[in-house]
C-alpha cells in the first residue's frame, strides 16, 4: 500500500507539473467547449436584414400581432433608392430588398447564403399568404402547431459536452499511458522498478488509478463549466456516465500502450497516440453530430471505441436514457481494451528483447 501510494503520488506530480499534459488534458478541450458552447450555441438564425424600398403596404399595414411576428424574422430599414438597396444586397450588407409593384411584392435577394435565402423566401411567402387569407375575412381552416421532439433545453452545448469530454479523456488517457511506457523505458526507470520489491500489478494499478482520477476531474470540470456558464442541463441517469468513463479511460490507456510499444521515443509515442485519437474524435462525433453524415461514415465510426464512449455518454447525460444504456458501450470498450492491451504487450515484448 505504501509503495502504491508513493507511486501514484509520483505519477500524479509528474502529470500536473507538466504544463503540456495539463494543457492537452484540460485546457485544450475546454477551449473547444467554450468555442462550441459560447460562440455557436445560438443555433437559431440571426434576423434577416430587409430593406423596404418606397412604401410596401403589405408590411406597413400589417396588423400588430402579425407585425410583431414579422419583426422577429426581419430587421426592417427604409429607403427610396432602389439602386442603392440592390447594391447593399449584392454586397451582402442586406439579405433582401422588397418593393411593391401594384399588388405584387418584388423581393430582390442574394443566394450567397443559401439557408438564409430559403428562409427569406419562405417567410415572405408565408406573410403574403397569411395576409391574403386575412383579407378574405375567413378564419383559416388548418393551423400548424410545431413541437420539438427533444427536450426544450437541447442546445448545442448538450450535444457538444459529452463528445468533447470523450475526446479529452481519450487524449489524456492515451497520452499518459504512451508517455509513461516509452519514457520509463527510455530512462530505464522501468528496469529500475523491475529490480525493486514492487509487483508489476502495483505499478500498473498506480498508473491506472491516477489516469482514472484525472478523467473524473476532467468530467467534473466539463460538466461544472458547461452547467455554470453555458446552460448545460443533465438529464436521465447521468451518473451512469461515471463507470462508462472509467472503462473508456482503460480503453484509451490501452491505445496509449499500443502507441508507446510501437514508437521509439517519448515524443513519438505521444504523437502516435494523437494520430490515433484525433481522427477518431472527428469520426466519432466529438466535434459535430454524425446524424447527418453518410452511411459509410457511420459504419466506420461504429468500429471506433470513442464512438461508443460518446454515444453512451450522450444517452445518459442528455438523451434522458436510463443507466442500462451504458452497458453495451461499456462491454464494447472493455473488449477493445483487452484486445489492444494484449496486442501492445506482444509488440512491447518483441521489441524489448533486442
Amino acid at each position: 500500500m505504501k509503495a502504491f501510494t508513493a507511486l501514484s503520488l509520483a505519477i500524479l506530480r509528474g502529470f500536473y507539473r507538466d504544463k503540456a499534459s495539463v494543457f492537452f488534458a484540460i485546457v485544450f478541450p475546454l477551449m473547444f467547449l467554450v468555442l462550441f458552447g459560447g460562440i455557436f450555441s445560438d443555433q437559431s438564425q440571426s434576423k434577416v436584414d430587409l430593406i423596404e424600398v418606397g412604401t410596401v403596404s403589405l408590411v406597413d399595414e400589417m396588423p400588430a400581432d402579425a407585425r410583431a411576428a414579422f419583426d422577429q424574422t426581419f430587421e426592417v430599414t427604409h429607403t427610396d433608392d432602389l439602386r442603392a438597396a440592390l447594391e447593399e444586397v449584392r454586397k451582402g450588407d442586406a439579405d433582401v430588398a422588397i418593393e411593391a409593384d401594384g399588388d405584387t411584392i418584388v423581393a430582390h435577394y442574394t443566394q450567397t447564403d443559401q439557408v438564409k435565402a430559403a428562409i427569406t423566401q419562405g417567410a415572405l411567402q408565408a406573410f403574403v399568404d397569411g395576409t391574403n387569407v386575412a383579407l378574405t375575412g375567413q378564419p383559416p381552416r388548418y393551423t400548424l402547431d410545431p413541437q420539438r421532439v427533444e427536450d426544450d433545453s437541447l442546445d448545442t452545448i448538450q450535444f457538444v459536452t459529452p463528445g468533447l469530454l470523450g475526446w479529452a479523456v481519450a487524449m489524456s488517457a492515451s497520452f499518459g499511458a504512451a508517455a509513461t511506457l516509452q519514457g520509463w523505458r527510455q530512462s530505464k526507470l522501468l528496469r529500475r522498478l523491475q529490480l525493486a520489491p514492487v509487483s508489476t500489478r502495483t505499478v500498473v494499478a498506480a498508473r491506472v488509478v491516477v489516469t482514472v482520477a484525472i478523467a473524473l476531474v476532467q468530467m467534473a470540470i466539463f460538466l461544472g463549466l458547461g452547467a455554470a456558464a453555458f446552460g448545460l442541463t443533465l438529464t436521465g441517469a447521468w451518473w451512469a456516465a461515471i463507470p462508462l468513463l472509467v472503462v473508456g479511460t482503460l480503453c484509451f490507456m490501452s491505445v496509449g500502450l499500443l502507441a508507446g510499444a510501437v514508437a521509439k521515443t517519448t515524443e513519438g509515442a505521444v504523437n502516435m497516440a494523437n494520430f490515433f485519437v484525433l481522427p477518431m474524435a472527428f469520426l466519432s462525433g466529438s466535434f459535430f453530430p454524425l446524424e447527418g453524415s453518410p452511411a459509410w461514415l457511420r459504419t466506420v465510426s461504429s468500429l471506433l471505441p470513442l464512438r461508443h464512449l460518446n454515444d453512451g455518454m450522450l444517452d445518459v447525460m442528455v438523451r434522458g436514457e436510463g443507466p442500462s444504456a451504458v452497458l453495451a458501450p461499456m462491454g464494447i470498450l472493455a473488449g477493445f481494451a483487452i484486445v489492444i492491451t494484449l496486442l501492445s504487450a506482444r509488440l512491447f515484448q518483441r521489441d524489448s528483447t533486442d
Partner: protein
Amino acid sequence: MGAIEVRGLAMSYGDLVAVDDVTFEVAEGEFFGILGPNGAGKTTILEMIEGLRKPDAGVVTVLGERVWPRNPALLPRIGVQLQASSFFERLTAREQIHTFAALYDVSGARADGWLERVGLVDKASTRVGDLSGGQAQRLSIACALVHDPELVFLDEPTAALDPQARRNLWDLLSAIADAGRTVVLTTHYMDEAEVLCDRVAIMDHGRVLELDSPAALVRGLDAATRITLTPGQLTADEAVGVEGVVDATDGPDGLVLTTRSPGRVLARLAEDDHLDGVRVQTGTLEDVFLDLTGREYRA
C-alpha cells in the same frame, strides 16, 4: 561463500554471442570492476546477475540465492543504479528518494539521511531535471542505497562527468564500499577502476580476458617504463649509453628514456645528478586494457 557466483554463463541474441561461457566469483565486501569496450557484454552480464534476463546457459547465485526466475526475496538485498536519468519525471530530489524509500518500505527519515550523505540537502527541492550531472548521479546512487543493500550494482556511474565531479563521486563510492558492502561497478574509465576496485574483470567479445587486482594486471603486462628528463641533462646519444635504456628520443618536455629496468636506470641517473624535474611513467591499467582489447576504434 561469495556474494556473487557465476558459472558457465552464456547468452546470445540470434547469431550474436553476447556472453560466452563466463565464470567468476565476487567475494563478500569486495569492490569488483567489470571493464570492457562498448558491446563487450558488460550490460548483458549485469542483467543476468540482477535476474532481469534468463541466461541461455549457466548458473548465477547472488547472496546464496538463485536469481532466475525473478526472486522477490533477493530484491530488497540488492541495490541497482542504472543511469543518471532513471528517475520519475518532474519530482524534486527529495520526492524522488522518498518514492524509492517507499518502494523498499524504508522510512522517510532514512531517505533524508541519504540525501545528506550524498551532499544534496541544499538541492532537496530542486527537480531532478535541473540537477547537474554530478548531482543527478549522486542522487541516483543514493536512491540505489536507500534501503541499505548488501550488494550494489553501479552501471557507469561517472559517465559524462567533469573531473571534479568524478573525483567527488569516487570518494562517495569508496565510502559505500568501506561500510562492508559488496560493490560491482562497470566503467569505461581505467583510472577509476584502478583507484576503486579490489579486482577487475576485463571483458571483450563476451569473454572475460583477465581477472585480477589492477596492480597485478599492470605487473603482468610487463610494460616498459618511460623516464622523462628535463631538457639539457643528457643528449640522446649519451642516454642510450646508459645500461638498461632501450631507447631515447627528444620530446617536447625533454628527453624520454624507455627502459624495462627502471630501478637500475634511475639509480644511475641519480648518481650523475640528472634527476631534477624527472618524471617516471609506468604502465597503467589502460595499457593493459588496450593491450588486451586492441586499439582499433569501435563505434
